[in-house]
């Protein structure tokens, strides 16, 4: 482990930009979501489009119902003359992982990552059903909130959390008094509306730089470790009350060995998932979790995970944090999880 780590190039997040997520952005098409965040992230990094060695995006065509929509959105990064480009049909956090791997090859020093999601055009619950196994789950029409509610019930039944604990998380992220939140009706029991994410349109962009290209920046947020793991798709074969994949990714990313953690940005679209993730990451009470509000406040699909990495890095950029943990999730009930450890120090 240490030998392979020694061979790794030092890579840092050097800039982050996002559009303020909104419920419904009719004025912008995909290109118009991408162009402003890419422009802002490059400007912040002091780079031009021509300086970027590798570009990769995360998005989902089903959200807007247009196959290969990511190709149209490419206009927003000015791909002419032709650029080295890739795309993942996943949250942009996985695009960042691909860029980090790409930078390890050593022939390029900078990468641009962007993500966009426009859920307002379609029926998001129906769209998310499309990611499920087409034999046993999708024909039942089960939606993302119902799946999360099954997980929440399992957590409550385990005795490790109460409905009140869920409301405490919701109140911390989006405001409101716990007692009042608990007096509201269930959406899909045991989840109430405040336990569930809003539907949002949005976009964000991140610039990665390696070695000396990163050292030119005042306070780069160095990626000290990054890893992602996936669990079986079949819910009945998983322990829904634990996030084993997060725990393993955290171990490989070095969450336990970085030293005191100032801030953690966790991609927990549902309140109970934040509790499961804190547990899996072994975060103590002293760690500030989701000061940005997290996905309970704004949840642009394919964007919210990369936003967690960007928000955590921004805290290092402006000096508010020394060490940070960022997490992104994908799939039903925290099926796949990515953990990234960021630090103001390039190495210990």
């Amino acid at each position, binding site marked *: 482990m240490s030998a392979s780590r020694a061979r790794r190039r030092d890579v840092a997040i050097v800039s982050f930009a996002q559009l303020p997520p909104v419920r419904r952005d009719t004025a912008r098409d995909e290109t118009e979501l991408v*162009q402003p965040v890419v422009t802002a992230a490059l400007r912040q990094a002091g780079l031009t489009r021509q300086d970027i060695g590798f570009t990769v995006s995360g998005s989902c065509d089903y959200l807007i119902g247009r196959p290969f929509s990511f190709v149209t959105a490419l206009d927003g990064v*000015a791909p002419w003359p032709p650029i080295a480009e890739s795309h993942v049909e996943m949250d942009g956090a996985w695009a960042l992982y691909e860029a980090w791997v790409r930078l390890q090859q050593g022939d390029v020093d900078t990468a641009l990552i962007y993500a966009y999601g426009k859920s307002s055009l379609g029926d998001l619950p129906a769209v998310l059903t499309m990611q499920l196994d087409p034999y046993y789950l999708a024909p039942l*029409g089960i939606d993302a909130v119902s799946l999360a509610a099954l997980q929440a019930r399992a957590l409550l039944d385990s005795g490790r959390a109460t409905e009140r604990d869920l409301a405490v998380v919701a109140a911390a992220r989006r405001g409101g008094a716990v007692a009042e939140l608990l007096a509201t009706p269930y959406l899909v*029991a045991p989840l109430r509306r405040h336990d569930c994410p809003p539907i949002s349109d949005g976009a964000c962009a991140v610039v990665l730089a390696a070695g000396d290209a990163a050292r030119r920046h005042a306070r780069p947020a160095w990626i000290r470790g990054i890893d992602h793991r996936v669990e079986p798709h*079949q819910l009945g074969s998983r322990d829904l009350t634990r996030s084993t994949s997060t725990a393993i990714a955290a171990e490989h990313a070095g969450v336990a060995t970085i030293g005191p953690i100032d801030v953690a940005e966790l991609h927990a679209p549902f309140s109970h998932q934040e509790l499961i993730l804190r547990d899996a990451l072994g975060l103590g009470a002293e760690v500030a979790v989701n000061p940005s509000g997290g996905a309970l406040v704004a949840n642009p699909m394919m964007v919210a995970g990369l936003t967690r990495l960007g928000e955590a890095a921004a805290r290092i950029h402006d000096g508010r944090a020394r060490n940070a943990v960022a997490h992104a999730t994908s799939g039903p009930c925290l099926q796949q999880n990515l953990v990234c450890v960021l630090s103001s120090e390039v190495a210990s």
Partner: protein
Amino acid sequence: MDRDEEVLEAPYRLEYTYQRSTGPVIGRFLGALRDARLEGVRTASGSVMVPPLEYDADGAATGEPTVVGPGGVVTTWAWVTEPRREHPLPHPFAWALVRLDGADSAMLHAVDAGSIDAMRTGMRVVPRWQDERTGSIRDLACFVPESAAAAAAAAAAAAAASAAAAGDDRPPVTMFPSPVALDYTVTAGRHLSAYLRALAERRIVGGRCPVCTKVYLPPRGACPTCGVPADAPVEVADHGVVTTFCIIRIPFDAAPFPPPYASVAVLLEGADMPIFHLLRGIPPEEVRMGMRVRAVWVADDQLGPTLASIRWFEPTGEPDAPHDQIARHL
């Protein structure tokens, strides 16, 4: 142009009419459902997986099918008060993971319990079968709380299915319909909306990139060379030059005319990007690169925010443009 009502929107349905192949393991399970029977498979470690997959989480191939249930235990559940159209039941119901008797994993389905008060983790449930079964997870209509009556109904359904299956010469389940239909409200965005609205007024409006000064048609959110919005409005003429073309000779459902007819790229005067349209008023074999053409608009009462406001292009009869005028736009 910053009010939402200036942005055009339209309903749009995305449909895929897929059939899905099942493979032998899933096909056998769906075939058993057709016979009102629940089956799992034995894994290499000896546990019983329901619903069955080809491989277990360790990557080992699963083995022999084994009958499970029909009753089982709810391991977790969620209560739906407002069912969606695609849900299995039209009235409030529970989703549940159900560990069937004899199984080690749990399967997801609906429980028709009548009330949230009838639901609890650990309760026993039995299946309720559809009368018409086709080899689908929905042949199992749902589970219901176990009671003497429910158990008797499930047993009777299974017995009837078993008797029917004895003389059954239906082929095994190898395929099933798996259609996708998703509804959207697509929005045109500000720039495309401005372009489309102009067409309803017999005008063609492009967008100029403020950096390279190219005029894009339609205007767009980013110039692909400069990365800035190409949206400074520019009126473009409704006549121009054919840059390239093809002749359609094979009929198809959506063809606008009986073939042969010409599809052309037209570089309108004042634009740097050609648009694609149809060309009429000339035999297809006489269509040429460099031909000068003009738009034929629909009647006033048929104008709308669509490129279909131009019926087609037709030759103007003027001398052709020299090749170097279009060479940069091919």
